[in-house]
Structure formats: structure tokens, C-alpha cells
């Protein structure tokens, strides 16, 4: 089933066209990747899909609904969740509360319910608590529930971002360079986790990543961007053999192969 459709979206900053007529279709429970050299427009594409930046031209539809001009919190509420390339956690909140926060759109009660601490609120808070703890356990972070994110190691903070993105039980997960800065064994763990997310939680995943081993092993389809444009798309095998891709990555040949 078609989940996300990106229809020739464009975005410029001043005179620079960061994304030019980029299109892609993402199906249910598949893992795809967007790769490309630095500055190719991959993160901007994520920002456009998640609503963090506004689309200049083109359309984005999610589950048939037009989300092109929707504010980010509403896109998240529909089931699109994401992580950030440069980890963006809430340092003033505990590890557990960082995970709890991303359920905001589905809270289902307001401040006055909270102040009266009605049974509905207590039930819901208990449920959020349980799910947040489960999410932390899924990523092996339950030991750190009460700590501040700033006290965690880099790899653990990346995992916490993932836990936070999974908390709202999204249908589509956008991972922006999830392997950046991780060591080899952490990357293997990450690959297992992403596979679990797809197979067990039935979540569709789009990965922006430079780490080719991860991309080639996990993804069914790879979209290659260069200078804001999509220059190729296909299975890992097809992309590896594409002349344009090889040209874009000239000098990084080993990385692609």
C-alpha cells in the first residue's frame, strides 16, 4: 500500500535550489534510503516532508491526504516521525520525559483535566509511562530513565532520539543519518534495530545515510540525490552499477562498492 507520495517538490534558499523536483513513493513497511554527497539536499527533503520547512513547489501526500502546507505537529499526529542529523534532545527533561513528550498530539486531555488530576488523566499518564518505559527497554535505555540526556554517551543519545521518534507509534519513520558517529558494533546494533522496527512494528522507514554498508544491506530501494536533483533510483544492485551515481561519488568509489 502506498504510504507517502512526494511529487516533484522544490525548495530554494535565496538563489540556491536545495531541492529540485524531487519525487518518490514510499510503501508500507519498507525500508528505503536517500543517499548522495554532502549538500545534495537530503536533509532538506526530510525537512520538507516533515513540515519543518515549507515546500516552494510540488506536493506531499501521506495516506492520501495532502500534507504539503501542514504544520509539523499535525504531520506528526498523522503518523510521520523523525530523528535529526545533529541530535536534538530536550536537555531540561529526563531521558524518560524526552520519550513521553512525543505523545503530545495524542494526549486527549487538557490542562484543566490535569490540574484536577481526573481519573482519565491518571489512566492516560500511566499508559504513557508504561509505553515510554517499553520504548526505552526496546532500545536498551531503561537503565537511564531518570538521567539527563546530556549525561549519556553519543551513541546512547542517538538511540534515545530513536526511542523518542518511535514513541508515537508512527507509520513512517524518517532517520537522518542515524549511523553518524557510531562505531562498527553500534552500527550493527542499529541495523538490527531498524530491521526489527520494520518487521515487528511494521513501520516504514526512510534513511538518509552516508554509511553504505547499512544502506546496501537494509534498503529495498535507494534514491540518489546530487545538487538537489534525483539522479538515480533503484535496488542497491542497480544503483551500484549506475554510471551517474559513480560519477557523483567519484573519489568515494570504495564507499559505494
Amino acid at each position, binding site marked *: 500500500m502506498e504510504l507517502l507520495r512526494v511529487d516533484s517538490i522544490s525548495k530554494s534558499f535565496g538563489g540556491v535550489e536545495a531541492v529540485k523536483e524531487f519525487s518518490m513513493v514510499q510503501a508500507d513497511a519498507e525500508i528505503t534510503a536517500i543517499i548522495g554527497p554532502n549538500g545534495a539536499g537530503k536533509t532538506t527533503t526530510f525537512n520538507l516532508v*516533515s*513540515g*519543518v520547512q515549507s515546500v516552494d513547489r510540488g506536493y506531499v501526500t501521506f495516506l492520501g491526504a495532502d500534507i504539503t502546507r501542514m*504544520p*509539523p*505537529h499535525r504531520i*506528526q*499526529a498523522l503518523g510521520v*516521525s*523523525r530523528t*535529526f542529523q545533529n541530535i*536534538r*534532545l*530536550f*536537555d*531540561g*527533561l529526563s531521558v524518560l*520525559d524526552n520519550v*513521553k*513528550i*512525543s*505523545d*503530545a*498530539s*495524542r*494526549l486527549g486531555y487538557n*490542562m484543566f483535566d*490535569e*490540574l484536577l488530576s481526573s481519573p482519565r488523566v491518571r489512566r492516560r*499518564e500511566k499508559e*504513557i509511562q508504561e509505553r515510554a518505559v517499553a520504548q526505552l527497554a526496546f532500545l536498551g535505555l531503561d537503565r537511564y530513565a531518570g538521567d539527563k540526556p546530556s549525561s549519556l554517551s553519543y551513541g546512547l543519545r542517538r538511540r534515545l532520539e530513536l526511542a*523518542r521518534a518511535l514513541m*508515537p507509534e508512527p507509520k513512517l519513520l524518517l532517520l537522518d543519518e542515524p549511523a553518524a558517529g557510531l562505531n562498527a558494533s553500534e552500527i550493527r546494533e542499529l541495523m538490527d534495530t531498524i530491521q526489527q522496527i520494520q518487521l515487528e512494528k511494521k513501520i516504514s522507514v526512510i534513511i538518509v545515510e552516508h554509511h553504505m554498508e547499512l544502506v546496501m544491506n537494509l534498503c529495498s530501494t535507494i534514491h540518489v540525490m546530487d545538487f538537489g536533483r534525483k539522479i538515480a533510483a533503484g535496488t542497491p544492485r542497480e544503483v551500484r552499477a549506475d554510471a551517474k551515481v559513480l560519477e557523483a561519488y567519484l573519489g568515494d568509489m570504495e564507499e559505494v562498492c
Partner: protein
Amino acid sequence: MAFYTAVLETTLLFSIFVLSVYMLSGLTGLFSLGHGAFITIGAYTVGLGTTRFGLPIWFCVILSVVVGLFAGLVIGLPTLKLRRDYFLLVTFMFGEMVRALLLWTAQLTGGAMGLAGIPYAAELPVIGVSTIVILVFVANLKKTAFGRTCIAIRDDELAAQAMGVNVYWHKVKVFLLSAAIASYGGGLLALNMTFIEPNLFNWLESAKLIVIIFVGGINSVTGSLFTAILYYSFGEVFRFAHVWRDVILGVLVILVIVFRSQGLFGAWELSLTWISSLFRKIRPAKSGG
């Protein structure tokens, strides 16, 4: 005794203001230099209502909250979409505007001469209970999903948005709550001082409220309240050192920012569990001795 009662009343009133700003600046990271305007609005609503229109006091207090909320909507709706620095500038101008408006409508408000003859109705019990209720409210709010969301917005607005938080709407709610508490406190202030004037609470006083929160610790209601009580009672108790109050605060601000940027209290909160654990620690020692 009457003197110390008066000091306590003033200190508690100012603690209410600090608590109202705590939600806005401490929890949500929004800085308003015009918060004194809400206090002034509350005070003048009560002052004018009781002296000029002969309305019942309880009604005037409710009215002060309503007027404060309305002013909060008028200022908050258009400005909370702006970047934080612009928000600060707009609230600053709002404060000055309210002051100018009160001077300009002298026939009604008494202008620079002030407004006298407000009934003395807010005595220690009323102020004390109000402070406690507001304290419990703010402290509880911090622990709920509402408070979590505030802190998330303070730490990283963009990430909060991407995590499903309607940042603008949440800011509006916090701003309105804060404005309502400030106006209520302003109403009590008028009923306590019985004389008010347009310079009652200028932008410097508004700025001090924010400074106090930073000295106490933005993550600690206890810290903000402690610092507020210390600062506002100090000047009254040590009258001879009154002028030194701001010097000491100034030095304290520099020391805290350099050596303890998380504020005096960090994220520590006084809680019932902490008190009871303290008693548990003391008791075995006593029975042992």
C-alpha cells in the same frame, strides 16, 4: 509585629509575581519585559472598580483576571508567533504603552498623581492562601504533560514541533495563564497598598522578576521562590541597607552565571518525600542517642 506582617504581605505578593513569570520565563523560556503591565492592569482594574464605580471587591478581583486575560490575548496572539527576541521587544513596548495610557487618561485614573482610597481588603490570610494555591498550581503544572511540553519548547522549539507539539498554541496558553496570575496578584497588590500609581511596576521591575528566576534556577520552583522571598524581604527588613539590595543581587547574578549557570538550586525541588526522608534520617539518630 505589624511591620513584619506588612513585610510578609509584600514579600508574598511579589512571590506571586515571580511564580507567574516562572511559568513563562523559567519553564517556557519566553522573556517578557512587560509583565509588570499585567500587574498594573490588575491593580488598576481593582482600583478603578472599587473607587470610581463602587463595585464589590470580590467582583473587581475576578474582573482583574478577566481584563488581564483579555490583554494577554491581544498581546499574545500576534506576538507569540514571532521569534523570542521580538517577543521581548513587543512586551517591553506593551508595558510602556500601558503606563503611558494610565498617565494620559488622568481624569479617570488620576494619572501621575496615582489612585488613592482603595479599600484595604487583602490582608495576610488572603494573600497567604493565594500564594500557597498558586504555588501548588505552578509546582504541579511543572510535573504534568503541560510542564514537560513547556520545557521541550524552551530547550528546542523545532524538535518540539517535530514531536507533535503545537508550539504556538502552547505558548499562548502559558502566556495567558501567566497573565491571569499576574493580574490577580496585581489586584491583590492594589487592595493591600490602597494607593497605586502608573509607575507601580515598570519594566525594570519586570526584568528583576526574570533575574530572580535565573538566580534561583530555571528548573526549580523552590529556588525561584526562595530567591524571591530573600530579595523582597531583605529590602524591607534591612532598611538601612536598602540601596545595597540591587548591588547584592547584581553581584549574585554575576557569581551565579559564572559559577553555577543552572541557578542556586539547580533542578532541586522541596517536596513532601524529601521532608519525610529527612525526618527518617533524623529519627534513628535520636533513638540511637
